[in-house]
């Protein structure tokens, strides 16, 4: 059963192109997707997913389920960095521990998007407001991470400009575009949806596929860094997502989300940020070693989630939700 799910997941073009990208690096092909094309693709994906989410959010309205889901999202995004921080301190210094904790507390939009297309494939419904959850879960981990650094490192000359930090956390381009598109989706509703549909819907799957080709290239280039990260972090990068997904599923079950939403929530909990958070950490906790937090998130957790994780978590749902 689980095997089938994984297979039907792997045999989708996006995942296969992700493999193709990884292969290109491994066989030393000169295939590359030059900048700023990946930027364009990710802007498109945030634009499309945000807009779609807004349009659906306005249909469903702000029900109690919505509120509950969003609260759960916030809690999860604040809880994960805290508990992982203490776990990581066993092996790492406070700076690295805090940076990695923040990375795993936050989310990966592409993992979310891949999961949503997986659900669409299987004909399992999910709610548009999950995109709001996606948006809400990106920032808290950054704040929590910095608070942890402040508490656990006596470091006088560290004076964050908190305004800058909040800026980084809530106004970085991905959060901003996602939330903005969501709001516009809410404002324009069904009508706006129809006029944009060929662009936001028609191209979506293809552009995701193309983007995952690049993700494969990027992830594979990071693999060599893993030698430096060591076994502890690599296993962390696989086990913690599973654990976070499990916690996420229990919460989802508790506030009984429908299956589709539950999967997306699990995926959000399991995923790690490899852009927004690392960029914030690089500037606010320069003492931490970027190759630790970027490479684990990008070269281990991301591939794991989109290949094995998503179907695995769905399998869990199929057990729990019957």
């Amino acid at each position, binding site marked *: 059963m689980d095997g089938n799910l994984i297979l039907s997941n792997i045999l989708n073009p996006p995942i296969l192109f992700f493999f193709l990208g990884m292969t290109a690096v491994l066989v030393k092909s000169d295939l590359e997707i030059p900048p700023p094309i990946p930027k364009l693709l990710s802007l498109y994906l945030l634009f499309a997913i945000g807009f779609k989410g807004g349009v659906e959010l306005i249909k469903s309205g702000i029900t109690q389920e919505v509120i509950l889901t969003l609260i759960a999202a916030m809690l999860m995004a604040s809880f994960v960095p805290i508990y992982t921080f203490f776990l990581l301190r066993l092996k790492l210094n406070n700076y690295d521990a805090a940076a990695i904790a923040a990375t795993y507390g936050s989310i990966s939009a592409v993992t979310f998007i891949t999961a949503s297309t997986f659900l669409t494939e299987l004909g399992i419904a999910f709610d548009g407001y999950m995109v709001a959850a996606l948006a809400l879960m990106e920032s808290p981990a950054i704040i929590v991470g910095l608070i942890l650094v402040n508490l656990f490192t006596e470091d006088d000359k560290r004076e964050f400009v908190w305004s800058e930090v909040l800026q980084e956390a809530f106004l970085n381009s991905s959060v901003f575009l996602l939330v903005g598109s969501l709001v516009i989706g809410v404002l324009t509703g069904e009508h706006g949806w129809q006029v944009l549909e060929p662009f936001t819907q028609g191209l979506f799957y293809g552009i995701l596929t193309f983007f995952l080709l690049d993700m494969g290239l990027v992830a594979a*280039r990071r693999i060599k860094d893993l030698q430096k990260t060591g076994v502890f972090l690599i296993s962390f990068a696989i086990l913690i997502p599973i654990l976070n997904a499990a916690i996420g599923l229990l919460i989802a079950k508790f506030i009984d989300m429908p299956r589709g939403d539950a999967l997306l929530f699990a995926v959000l909990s399991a995923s790690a940020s490899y852009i927004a958070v690392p*960029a914030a950490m690089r500037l606010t906790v320069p003492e931490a070693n970027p190759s630790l937090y970027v490479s684990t998130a990008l070269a281990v957790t991301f591939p794991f989630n989109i290949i094995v994780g998503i179907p695995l978590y769905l399998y869990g749902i199929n057990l729990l939700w019957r």
Partner: protein
Amino acid sequence: MHAVKKIEIIASALELPKILEGLNQSGVRGHAVIHNVTGQSLQEGREDFDMTMLDNSVYIIAFCMPEQIKPVVEHIRPLLNKFGGTCYLSDVTEIRSINCVASL
């Protein structure tokens, strides 16, 4: 013709705003920034461009008067030590023109 100083800074794209602020504070008003620079630093490195901006560097060039060097060093060195990046100085001759550094 006029003798001026050239400042070259290579650093992570993320530091750019801080560095430019440092230059402005040092009274160096003019600069040019070259983006999407890939490279390899002394420790480890990567040649590919990267979606995760972390590895993309910027190459900053600023021409200024010799007396401005001291403040620049004072403002920039702490940034380099905190965030990484390297900074180099050299002597160049400026061709007089309306916008030239020495024309102030």
